[in-house]
Every structure is written in C-alpha cells, then in structure tokens.
C-alpha cells in the first residue's frame, strides 16, 4: 500500500508541531470518553463504599455494599484504566511518531468488543448476578455473562495492543519515523507488552471459569467443554497474572506519562536515555513475577518459588523504579538549573511551576506513587511480612496510593493536555484544574493512610462490619480502628470532590469547550525510501 494515500488525513498541532492522524484522533476520543464514563461509575461507588466503611454512618446494606465493592473494583481497576491506556497507546504510537494509525476500522471493532464486554459486566454486577468481587475466585460463581464480558473486554484490549505493535512497525517501515522510539513511546511499549501478558493470563483464568459457570443445559455432562471444577489455586495464579499485571501496565504507563508531563511543563529531558530505558526493560524482566504477592500465604507453593517471584527477579523491577525515582527529578532539576534556578540544593524545586495542573499533577502523583505506594507495596510483598498484611485493609491502602494517587492523578494531569492538544477543545475551568490536583491528592492520601493504619490493626478488606454485629462472637478490635475508618470516609469525600471536578472539567471541555480549528496540512512520511 502506498503511504502517500494518507497524506490528507493529517493536521498539524499549532502548539507542539506534532502531526496528528485525524482518524486516530477520533479513536483516542472514543477511548478517553469511555474511560471517563467508567471512572464516573467507579467514583460514585467509591463514595458509597467509603461512607459504609465509616462506621458511624454505615450507609449501605450488606448486599449492596458487596455489590458496589465489586462494581467499584472492576470499573476502576479494569475499565477506566484500560480504556485510558488504549487511548494512550494510540496517542503514543500514531501522534507522537507523526505516523498513520493502521487499521482504523479494526480499532473501532476492538473498541466495540471492549465496550460490549464492559457493559455486559456492569449489567451483571448491578443486577446482582455477579456479587463475586473484582477477583471472582471460584468456587464463588457469577453469571456466565460476567465472565464472557471480561473475556470480550480482554480480547478487545489484546487486539489493540497488537495493533499498537503493528503501528510501530508501520511507522518505521513506511518511513513516518526513523531511529529509536522516543522514550515516552518506549515506556508505552513496555506497558503494551505487559498488557499482552496480562490479557493472556486473563484468558487463561477466565475461559475455563466461563465454561465452568455455564449450566449443564448448555454444556452437558460428557462434553469435552464441560468443566466441573476450577482448581482454586490454578485460578489464583492465572488470575493474578491478570489482576496484578494489569496494575503493572499502569506503572509503566504512568512513568512514561511522568516523563512526558515533566517535559511539557518544565522542558525536562532525560539525562541519560540508556538509564531510563534499562529501567523499563527491568520492568519487562521482573515486574510480572510480582503477581505472586497475592499468593504468598496460599497453600501449595514452596518458599523458593515464593521468594524468587515475589522479589521480582532479585528486585530487578524495584531497581527499575528506583532508577526512575532518581532520573525523573534529575531531568527536571537539570532543565530548571539551565534556566538559572541554581541557588542552593532545591531552588529548582521551590520555583517549579506548581500552579500548573500538569506539573502539580505530575509531582504529587510521583510522590504518592513512589514514597507511599511503592514503599508499602514492596513491604507487603516480602514473603514473611505478607502474613501480617494479607487481605487486610493495608492492601487497599497500598493500591489506592498507586492506582489512584499515582496513576489516576497522572492520567488526570495528562488529560488537561490531551483535551486542547489532541481533542482540540479549550479547557473550561483551567484554574479549577490546578486546585483539583491538590484536592484529589490530599483526599486520596487521607483515604490510604486511614486504610493502612486500620489494616495494621487487623481490619480486613472487603468487610462490611468491623463490629461483627451479626456474628455469633464479637471481636473487640482496637479502639483506634474506628477513627481510622472514619478517615477513609472523610478522605473519600475530599477525593471524590476532586474526582467530580475533574470529570466536570473533562466532560464540559470535551463536549462544550471552544473548538480549536484544525490546521489541516498534507503530511507524507518524511523518512520514506526515495523521500527528499
């Protein structure tokens, strides 16, 4: 196919000079909008759950509480995050490389699979046919359509990942781009590879479970498709290859987005590209071994297996993160110092653009993800220490710092750039966006701190009633546990305020913001064979 066929499908971004493939832009739009819809659903669930955890309010009834925890977990951890990441993959390949995105119709088909799956899962959850939590551990059984929905969603996302890889190949082959991938795209590439592993694991976990959940009227006894029992530990291993690796996609994508945000806000350039890229490769090697965190106190596994895997391959992936922990601020510092902010050790930091949502979002999510989420995560995943933390509220405490305070906040900050630059609408309420990042960061830190300390005192996760008032025995928990749980409620109100401000800004801007007229320019592959 001749690459010149696509030359009139491009526009030039007036701010950055990037060449944007306009059909790809619409794919980014639909994925980002879908992401925000599920974020909204998850956000409403979040506040209802948190107000139930707050023992003095104890808002929901038991069954609704468990149903909404399921819906909150699935919508936030899977649908919001993965839809946004798919938007990110298209942005990182086509837009950043100034390339065409191959297979636009295929892209829409993949989105169709994902949205069908996501809607199916949500219908099943909210009609009470899948009160099985995000983890859906068999023998706890949900409606077959719940599993089918997850499989459809995973297949759609998996195809998107392969399409992303194909887009990278096409960009080089047709000459849209030359040389190494930009660091941002490289980071997204590691995220996409982690995603491929994630979604394969998801298929291994959920396909047998789906067959097992089908009634005998559909798959009779004796059929080779009949599965009477899913081994619970097999499911746990396969599921966490999906469930936790899905969060490692966030990690790689978030780090890539930090490099981009640092660059957009302060002009930071990675000091040493080799160091940053090695850190990403270390993620590929080690990070998905860490899925065993969830199985550290499970029966059937040896200490050697546990230690080797929970150490992420001798802490290779942690070393990767620690490299970023230095190289990201170093990039910002170098850029700031070159602007003359050289006094003392920290003038570069105090005079950073803190009133810029891109920078404040980046810096806050960096601190929350690294200082709080990363440290608690590594500690939870020590084989012996997991005994005093497995399935306590410390676990949600940890991943609210990483996924919410880290990834979600970074995604929010990026959205404030994506809306004008890619979706071509002026931001409505730009000033509010600055406050939004701080409100959200403070709220989610309070939530996570409350959860972590309650968990240290033994509060279980996914538990309706710390007073055990309906049980035969009442265990007298430490009195300090209730104030901690009320912190969860208070923090959730603050964080949800920030979240709803974000959704308000995003939705208003995308649908009613002032249109930025596209500058349509012909664009041909600059490095194609035979090109001037």
């Amino acid at each position, binding site marked *: 196919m001749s690459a010149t066929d696509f030359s009139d499908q491009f526009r030039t971004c007036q701010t950055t000079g990037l060449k944007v493939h306009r059909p790809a832009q619409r794919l980014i739009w639909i994925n980002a909008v879908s992401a925000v819809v599920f974020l909204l659903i998850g956000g409403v669930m979040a506040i209802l759950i948190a107000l139930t955890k707050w023992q003095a309010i104890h808002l929901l009834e038991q069954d609704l509480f468990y149903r909404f925890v399921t819906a909150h977990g699935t919508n936030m951890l899977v649908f919001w995050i993965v839809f946004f990441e798919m938007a990110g993959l298209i942005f990182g390949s086509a837009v950043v490389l100034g390339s065409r995105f191959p297979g636009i119709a295929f892209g829409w088909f993949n989105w169709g699979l994902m949205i069908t799956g996501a809607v199916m899962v949500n219908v099943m959850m909210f009609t009470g046919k899948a009160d099985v939590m995000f983890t859906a551990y068999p023998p706890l059984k949900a409606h077959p359509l719940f599993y089918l929905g997850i499989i459809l969603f995973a297949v759609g996302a998996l195809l998107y990942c392969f399409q992303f890889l194909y887009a990278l190949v096409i960009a080089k082959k047709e000459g849209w781009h030359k040389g190494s991938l930009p660091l941002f795209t490289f980071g997204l590439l590691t995220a996409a590879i982690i995603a491929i592993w994630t979604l394969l694991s998801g298929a291994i976990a959920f396909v047998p479970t789906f067959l097992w959940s089908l009634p005998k009227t559909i798959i009779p006894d004796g059929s080779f498709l009949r599965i009477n029992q899913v081994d619970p530990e097999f499911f746990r291993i396969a599921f966490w290859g999906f469930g936790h690796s899905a969060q490692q996609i966030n990690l790689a994508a978030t780090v890539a987005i930090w490099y981009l945000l640092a660059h957009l806000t302060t002009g930071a350039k990675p000091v040493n590209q080799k160091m940053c890229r090695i850190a990403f490769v270390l993620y590929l090697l080690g990070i998905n071994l860490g899925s065993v965190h969830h199985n550290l106190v499970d029966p059937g596994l040896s200490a050697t297996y546990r230690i080797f895997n929970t150490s992420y391959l001798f802490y290779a992936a942690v070393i990767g993160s620690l490299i970023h922990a230095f190289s990201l*601020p170093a990039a910002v510092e170098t850029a700031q*110092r070159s602007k003359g902010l050289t006094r003392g050790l920290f003038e570069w930091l105090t005079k950073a653009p803190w009133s810029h949502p891109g920078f404040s979002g980046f810096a806050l999510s960096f601190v929350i993800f690294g*200082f709080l989420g990363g*440290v608690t995560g590594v*500690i939870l995943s020590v084989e*012996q*220490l997991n005994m005093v933390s497995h399935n306590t509220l410390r676990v949600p405490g940890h991943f609210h710092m990483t996924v919410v305070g880290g990834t979600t906040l970074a995604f929010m900050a990026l959205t404030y750039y994506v809306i004008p630059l890619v979706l071509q609408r002026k931001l409505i309420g730009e000033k509010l966006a600055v406050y939004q990042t701080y409100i959200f960061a403070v709220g989610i830190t309070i939530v996570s701190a409350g959860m972590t300390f309650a968990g240290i005192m033994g509060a279980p996760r996914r538990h309706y009633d710390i007073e055990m008032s309906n049980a035969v025995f009442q265990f007298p928990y430490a009195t300090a546990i209730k104030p901690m749980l009320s912190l969860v409620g208070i923090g959730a109100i603050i964080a949800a305020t920030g979240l709803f401000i974000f959704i308000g800004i995003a939705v208003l801007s995308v649908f009613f913001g002032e249109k930025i007229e596209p500058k349509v320019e012909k664009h041909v592959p600059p490095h194609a064979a035979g090109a001037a």
Partner: protein
Amino acid sequence: MSDNKEKMHAPGSLVLALIFLAWFALVYFTQWIALMKNWVVY
C-alpha cells in the same frame, strides 16, 4: 572524561532520592521488628 563532565548535574535530586531511600529502609525494617513480636509460625 574531563573534570567538567564529572561535576554534579543534579545534586538536589540525589539528596531527594537518598531521603526517599532512608524512609524506605526505615519503614521496611520497622515491619520486620514488628513481625518478630508475633506468634511463632512456620
């Protein structure tokens, strides 16, 4: 390499990173000490 190239580019970041590592180690070993007070299990 020349001396000029060997000077610190980002001393502030190195200090920040070291503070981070100190906090990491502190929390990490606190947890081990807390675990040692528990029942004997193996």
